[in-house]
């Protein structure tokens, strides 16, 4: 009898955990789909200048990106404590500016591509994190992305995006590790500002 009761209890526990996970997954999926649809809508508006588009897109996506956490994670646990509070602030500001510019740059490549399609895959849930795969089809190419969300209070926020197996956070972290291994915090802040070593 005890055994049965225990197993019933276990089943209830597990199924409610599973139910919560499923609910989280649905929430995240709905949120991301809404955001992406809104962004696409802005991109398709032909009467807006690039700057106006950018402003509107920022209004849409800023609330779901935890930029400050991303800055911290990108620098990593080894190097983050090496910055003074002032340096942390400068680092975060410059990093966020760069990430935003890069995001807008990439996303505007899809404007005008009317048959760009988004497919939402099966989300992976673990604890307070939901990883949502999204496949983008554009110009005959298939790009696999993973949007990584975590629960921040009552909201879901993005802390990383993976593009074709490459995590943005990890990519920056490896670059920052190199800069910090070869140089100083000042070099890092400077590189972040002027790394347009461009032709």
């Amino acid at each position: 009898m005890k055994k049965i009761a225990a197993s019933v209890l276990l089943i209830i526990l597990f199924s409610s955990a599973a139910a919560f996970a499923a609910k989280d997954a649905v929430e995240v999926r709905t949120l991301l789909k809404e955001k992406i649809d809104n962004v696409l809508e802005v991109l398709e508006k032909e009467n807006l200048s690039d700057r106006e588009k950018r402003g509107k897109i920022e209004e849409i996506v800023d609330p779901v990106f935890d930029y400050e956490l991303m800055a911290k994670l990108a620098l990593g646990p080894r190097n983050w404590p090496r910055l003074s509070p002032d340096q942390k602030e400068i680092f975060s500001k410059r990093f966020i500016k760069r990430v935003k510019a890069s995001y807008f740059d990439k996303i505007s490549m899809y404007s005008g591509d009317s048959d760009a399609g988004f497919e939402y895959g099966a989300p992976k849930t673990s604890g307070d994190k939901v990883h949502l795969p999204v496949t983008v089809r554009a110009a005959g190419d298939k790009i696999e992305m993973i949007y990584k969300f975590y629960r921040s209070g009552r909201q879901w926020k993005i802390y990383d995006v993976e593009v074709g197996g490459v995590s943005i956070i990890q990519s920056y972290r490896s670059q920052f590790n190199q800069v910090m291994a070869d140089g100083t915090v000042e070099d890092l802040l400077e590189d972040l500002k002027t790394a347009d070593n461009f032709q």
Partner: protein
Amino acid sequence: MTYCMILHNTGKERLLEAVVFIFLFCFVFADTLYAGQTPDNTAAAGKQENVKGQAGQQQNDFDGFDSGGDFDDFDEFDSGTESRSGSVYDPLSGYNRFMTKVNDRIYFWVLKPAASGYAAVTPGFVRKSVNRFFKNLGYPVRFVNNVLQLKFRRAGVETARFLVNSTVGLAGLGDPADRWMDLEAYPEDFGQTLGVYGIGGGGHLVLPLLGPSNFRDSLARIPDLFLDPLYYLEPSEAAIGLRVFDRVNSTSLHLGEYESLKKDAVDWYIFLKNAYENRRKKKIEE
């Protein structure tokens, strides 16, 4: 695009010739590349003052950020190719950085102008068809490597794709298999096959013209080469010509992407290395 443009010559002497050519080419470039490269510490030092000055005016509202707890909750970024102790194994980093610069110059000085000019006179649908034609020729490589990895269903799909696209798709110019029958390509190469059987990448290695690779994937190009129809084309000049054409054509479909990625990078070489190794890791896991 990813095929080796040099190694496929039939005669041994020609292979040697090509290797010698590449090395000569690199040495010629070495001068131009290293000439403009003096460490620019003075400029950085000057800016330091500037940075400190700005910082002094700001309030320190980032203090609470130091808790460290965040890193424990998000420790996934240390478990990838980027190991805790450091980064991708890279014994040849000096050479690799240099070759990355050579490839960069080749892109801006040769490949990009050629691809832009070609794109200006060739409609997009033609270029996409050409791209599909060359992709269709990659069927033997994909088929054999799918089989070697015991992915028999995928190998079957690849075969169906090849048959449909080579006939209905007019020698691979179209892709009716994907468009109407929902049959997707499953790209696999011998480097991935070795990876599936547990062989690590070895050190990172940037190849001339071909870009980021590693020891395993570079060697794995050789068996794949024998599965490439272009390898058996005579005269070999025609095969070289077609490979160059393939490269220019595929570049013309992705103009601006290289520049866009490079603009975002803090350290372009590290970015490429990390991206390559992680992408390969993901492809091997699939």
